[in-house]
């Protein structure tokens, strides 16, 4: 057990070190979702979006939940990228030839991605706060938002790692990623509530786990506990099933890739 902790903390510190050496890219990953989606999109559509339709005092307060979950989505889907590079340049092989527990590398990646995502979510909620968005459920509500983010993020990171272990080249990886990311966002309640969508889109959006996550985060920000408890309970059940499925798939991909 002590050995296991030593491995995992060393491997996690490696990701942290790497990030700190890539200050430029760190800045952009951190700033991009808030700047582009929350600030620009939120303010741009302030008057175009009908507050009757979005059921929120301002569009930015409606959008905050969507941007939070989008950040989880993007971080999760990109979570396997570094493992992909490790696989391609042989570093992963070097790690796996040492007497470490077979799950350590993967677990360190989960730890790292989840920590970064949680920090980013907090920053986004902070920026939203500056634009007048006060979470209706207070600090406890923010904690629940982080929990939902973690539950969704684990499954997404697992998908990303499974993909990283399965693809032949990183070109394939980024093609699949690009193909997944935007449709996931548009076919969800991130930008528009389901009730305002064309029937076929809202039907598809209902099968998107992202929709369920957003529909739980949104009342935590906008309405209060009475409205939020139902969707939160629902999303926990859905995410546990989603995570189980993704972890099963990624464990299989990992075992296949590692012979």
């Amino acid at each position, binding site marked *: 057990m002590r*050995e296991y902790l*030593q*491995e995992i*903390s*060393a*491997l996690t*510190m*490696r990701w942290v*070190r*790497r990030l700190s*050496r*890539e200050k430029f890219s760190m800045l952009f990953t951190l700033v991009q979702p808030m700047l582009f989606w929350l600030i620009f999109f939120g303010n741009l559509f302030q008057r175009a979006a009908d507050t009757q339709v979005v059921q929120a005092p301002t569009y930015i307060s409606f959008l905050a939940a969507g941007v939070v979950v989008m950040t989880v989505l993007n971080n999760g889907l990109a979570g396997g990228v570094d493992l992909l590079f*490790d696989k391609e*340049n*042989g*570093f992963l*092989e*070097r*790690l*796996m*030839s*040492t*007497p*470490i527990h077979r799950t350590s590398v993967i677990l360190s990646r989960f730890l790292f991605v989840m920590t970064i995502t949680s920090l980013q979510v907090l920053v986004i909620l902070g920026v939203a706060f500056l634009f007048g968005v006060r979470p209706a459920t207070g600090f406890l509500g923010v904690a629940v938002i982080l929990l939902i983010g973690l539950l969704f993020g684990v499954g997404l990171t697992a998908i990303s790692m499974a993909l990283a272990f399965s693809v032949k080249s990183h070109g394939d990886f980024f093609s699949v990623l690009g193909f997944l990311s935007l449709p996931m966002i548009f076919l969800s309640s991130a930008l528009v509530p389901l009730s305002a969508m064309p029937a076929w889109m809202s039907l598809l959006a209902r099968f998107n786990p992202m929709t369920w996550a957003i529909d739980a985060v949104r009342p935590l920000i906008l309405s209060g506990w009475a409205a939020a408890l139902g969707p939160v309970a629902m999303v926990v059940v859905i995410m546990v099933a989603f995570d189980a499925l993704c972890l099963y798939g990624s464990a299989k991909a990992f075992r296949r890739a*590692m*012979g």
Partner: protein
Amino acid sequence: MMGRAVAIDVSKLGKVYDGVTAVQDLSFQVYAGEIFGLLGPNGAGKSTTLRVLITLLRPTTGQATVLGHDVVREAEAVRRLIGYVPQERAIDRFLTGREHLLLLGDLYHLPKDESCRRIAELLKLVDLEGKADLPAKTYSGGMKRKLDIACGLLPNPKILFLDEPTLGLDVQSRLRIWEYIRRLRERGITVVMTTNYLDEADQLCDRLAIIDEGRIKALGSPSELKTALGGDTLSLTVGEADMGRVELLASALKGLPAIRAISTRPTGLEIRVESPEKALPAVLEAAGRLACRLEFIEYHRPRLDDVFVAHTGHAIRSEFPEAEE
């Protein structure tokens, strides 16, 4: 060779990937304290063999033991006893040399002070002390390779596995890497390495296995392999105008006492001879008699190239080193 301790025992090993046979029916032993080479062209199955031995691949058939531990059932025990130096570039460009070693120290569960002590020693061994705290992206190919080797040695392994240790390096770096590898043998470490460089196999390895198309074609020390070919080689380059008479010359020489084998080449003949003193006069006499003008005569002791060609039927293709999968 009798009575030497066996460090690695491979028996009827086979590996099939997605229906493609990478290696089959490999059997060999590596003795404790020797430098053992797996020589072959890219795609021959060397790296696959190495990966099975370091427990990164499960064999499809057969078995292998490393210091008495089965590489599948006792993989964990094997990993604790070995060090591995992958092909170049297995380096995180954002980490410094020291950080690489510290990371591996934790993965081998070394206590902090022990880890630091060994790291200082290894950085000295590979002359990287001055650059230890710079990110690896600033390192040259040779320096990366030295760091690789230091990483492989950090666990104080009984056996060190090196995959193409000098692939793509300049001559000076290669010589230095060879020097380190010899020094390891002096320290009693068994070394197993793959290479597709004939000179490397010849000068560095105590024994080697020539692998081609997934099978072992020959096994032994470089000098044993060369001697086994039987005799030295005499290459005749015949004037273009006289190429028509080459077959005649070949049949005239066939059966002479000092001559063992003759093969025709586009530029002339290649003759395997028992002793050049006896063969050369006979060859010159026959050529003179047939008025077959010889432009160039080359005589050489068998080289590893000849061994390779004799056992595989083709030259090793090392002019275009490609990344191996």
